[in-house]
């Protein structure tokens, strides 16, 4: 008796009861079901929802591993005792801090999915698989686990289940979770203490009288928003040896993930490309304003405005958001023309929010959530426009 037949027996035992979907999900997640459909015509294709989700997760794994190394690397650099990037010391810090985030994210999120499936008596949906992996990658490393659990509960219930579950949600659940954390617990989501592992602990120990140096590390966007100059090299920013949320620092690995998603036709290249174009456009406009002398160097927007336009692509969570979250097929525009508009506005607005609202240094989160809301409207007008065009053609013919 292997696990598979055990699960199969359990499934048979609970058939027709309220718990059936839960066992069915466990069984089909781990194994192929024993029986196939007998009648009718069915499309046999490998790219079902589960496969799609797993592809995205595969694209995310490099970011996760890199995040673990980077967590330790940033920690020891801030302490003044730098270690090699690819060292066990660095990886260990990341592993013990990030693994719990992943476990909590999946545990709580899938738990809620199972509860809702049981109550509503439908099959467990795979929608949370990607969200559960995205969430630990877009939060600061020291976020308390209970906060993450509260936010995941909120995001999955209010962001997804009230609309009818996977495929029906208006907002990207992972970003809903991050936005909730951002507004609910701002001290844990911004500032110069949360991005480096151990900085908050240090502050507490110092407050309690310990004779140690405080450690701090501001994200690049955070320091730019305060008018400081940054001293990271472009290659550091591109390869991701900078402080930030767990998995979003390495533009290089995100780019690899993007190529993988485009190659497997799971991520939309239209959205990614148009978002980059949008961001560059807005960045160029700001550069133009800054160099034209319309604002002076004393303006609080000057530092961010005069940041070279293409730097915006490699700092902050822009690349990660655009590649992995703007392309979420459920919440993005569905029409091809709509995708161009949707992506362009995400890029455009991200940079605008970054520059004009230093209280929200990460504009890409708010820009994607905003455009999620507008995506159905964009699609509506694209489709109506198409209908009108065809109607006109019809009239010309009949006339």
């Amino acid at each position, binding site marked *: 008796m292997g696990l598979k037949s055990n699960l199969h027996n359990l499934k048979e035992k609970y058939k027709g009861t309220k718990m059936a979907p839960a066992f069915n999900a466990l069984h089909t997640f781990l194994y192929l079901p024993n029986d196939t459909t007998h009648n009718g015509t069915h499309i046999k294709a490998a790219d079902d929802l589960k496969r799609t989700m797993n592809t995205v997760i595969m694209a995310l794994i490099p970011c996760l591993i890199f995040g673990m190394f980077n967590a330790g690397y940033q920690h020891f650099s801030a302490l003044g005792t730098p270690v090699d990037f690819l060292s066990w010391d660095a990886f260990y810090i990341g592993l013990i801090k990030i693994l719990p985030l992943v476990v909590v994210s999946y545990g709580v999120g899938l738990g809620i999915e199972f509860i809702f499936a049981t109550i509503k008596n439908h099959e467990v949906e795979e929608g949370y698989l990607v969200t559960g992996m995205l969430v630990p990658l877009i939060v600061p490393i020291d976020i*308390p686990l*209970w*906060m993450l659990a*509260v936010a995941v509960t909120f995001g999955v219930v*209010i962001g997804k289940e*009230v609309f009818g579950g996977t495929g029906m949600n208006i907002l990207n659940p992972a970003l809903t979770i991050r936005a*909730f954390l951002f*507004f*609910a*617990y*701002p*001290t*844990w989501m911004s500032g110069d203490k949360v991005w480096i592992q151990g900085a908050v602990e240090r502050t507490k120990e110092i407050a309690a009288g310990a004779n140690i140096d405080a450690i701090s590390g501001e994200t690049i966007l955070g320091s730019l928003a305060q008018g400081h100059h940054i001293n990271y090299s472009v290659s550091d920013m591109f390869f991701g040896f900078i402080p930030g949320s767990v998995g979003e620092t390495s533009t290089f690995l995100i780019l690899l993930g993007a190529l993988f998603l485009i190659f497997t036709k799971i991520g939309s290249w239209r959205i990614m490309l148009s978002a980059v174009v949008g961001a560059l456009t807005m960045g160029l406009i700001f550069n133009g304003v800054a160099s034209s002398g319309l604002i002076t160097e004393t303006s609080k927007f000057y530092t961010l405005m005069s940041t070279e336009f293409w730097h915006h692509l490699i700092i902050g969570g822009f690349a990660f958001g655009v590649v992995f979250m703007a392309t979420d097929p459920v919440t993005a525009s569905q029409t091809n023309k709509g995708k161009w508009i949707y992506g362009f506005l995400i890029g455009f607005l991200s940079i605008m929010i970054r520059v004009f609202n230093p209280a929200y240094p990460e504009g890409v989160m708010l820009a994607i959530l905003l455009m999620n809301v507008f995506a159905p409207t964009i699609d509506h007008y694209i489709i109506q426009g198409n209908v009108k065009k065809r109607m006109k053609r019809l009239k010309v013919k009949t006339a």
Partner: protein
Amino acid sequence: MALLSKKDTKLITDPLLDNNPITIQVLGICSALAITAQLKASIVMALSVMAVLAIGNVVISLMRNIIPSKIRIIVQLVVVAALVIIVDQVLKAFSYELSKTLSVFVGLIITNCIIMGRFEAFALANGPWKSFLDGIGNAAGYGLILVIVGFFRELLGSGTLLGFKVLGDPIEKTGLYALGYENNGFMLLSPMALIVVGIIIWVQRSRNEALVEDN
């Protein structure tokens, strides 16, 4: 003999649950979102609306046969405006701090849809006693939701209830805060009030399927 007849009791109990002005008729949402960050403000707002609605309903009901129907809205506005000014002045006189918290929202009771709605739908067609009960009932239904929302927003957002630190002191780290708990700043923002009202609507409609609208 009972104090209220069965029909009269229904006038009060109906708007509390199955015909609640906020969750079923979706009226008076603005103030429910704006002033519910603290429980105290919610209670005072609920009482103010109750005073205005109950008295206003009686006044309109008494005048219902002499108001020309063409100008009835203006008459109603005059009545409600007069009452709101009285309430506003009373608040300013006896609880100035609170009236500053409620700020413009006391004045905006005038535009609260529940009030004009009850004048139009009930007071113009019923006697003063029934109108009085209707006013009390609807204001109580409105107040009930305000108090529920205010309770959760103050408890989770500030860790207090009516100003008492029920969860411990966040600065000295006592009670729950010693365990690492922190207040949820999102609860203090208006969008969260909308979500809380939404959850109440969700719970109410899943308990009573008859309330779910067809679409």
